[in-house]
């Protein structure tokens, strides 16, 4: 199941809508890294609210996205990690070190508006 990516001003917003296979997550990574260049985006938000599990593969791949997007000159914010998912990640020892996380989409947009040196009225 492909993740829709919405272009909103200088940002890309990817909203995960169901459980994803490893191939889906890799496809999302590649699409975001490519579209950051195509649309000259300043920021990327990945909304994982609907993700059932953040295992080592999902965590590692989302961390890769953030680092690759940063190398392309933009910032990534992961939003919507659910309490149970956060609990499981901590139990497993999975971290998203060096990756910005925010509570929800609103907080994520607010963060990018403050930090990406662009105004939303572009």
């Amino acid at each position, binding site marked *: 199941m492909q993740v829709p990516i919405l272009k909103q001003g200088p940002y890309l917003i990817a909203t995960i809508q169901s459980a994803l296979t490893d191939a889906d997550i890799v496809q999302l990574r590649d699409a975001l890294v490519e579209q950051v260049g195509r649309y000259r985006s300043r920021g990327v938000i990945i909304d994982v609210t609907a993700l059932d599990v953040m295992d080592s*593969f999902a965590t590692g791949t989302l961390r890769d996205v953030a680092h690759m997007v940063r190398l392309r000159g933009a910032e990534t914010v992961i939003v919507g990690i659910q309490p149970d998912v956060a609990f499981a990640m901590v139990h497993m020892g999975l971290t998203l070190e060096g990756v910005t996380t925010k509570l929800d989409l609103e907080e994520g947009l607010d963060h990018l508006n403050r930090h990406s040196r662009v105004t939303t009225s572009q």
Partner: protein
Amino acid sequence: MKTPAVLEEVSVAVASDADIVSARMQGRALALRIGFRPTDATLIATAISELARNILLYAASGEIAIRPIERGERTGVAVVAQDRGPGIADLPRAMEDGYSTSGRLGLGLPGVRRLMDEFEIRSGPGQGTTVKVKKWIA
């Protein structure tokens, strides 16, 4: 508390990455029916996801069986991940954080051990790998 006797074992063949998702979803559903809280069902689903991926990654195919268990007054779930792959040559190292022969994070097996209450692994070169884990309702 629900009686686990009426609940049937779930068995999922693992041969593609869609099967990883299927195994963990069926595992979560069974855990909830057994009486686990949603938080613990997520821990169990995460462990199943790691075990299923290991099957795919190292053995190409195998099976995940999930069933309700009882011990005295306690109720829980057992997950058995079994494959006929090449087996693990160095088991102690495979259980170390950050050790991986696949270039990944290397948190799979040690992570599964931390997520569950009981952990057993049998493996050796040419023998395939069987991982059996249990979690009890707190």
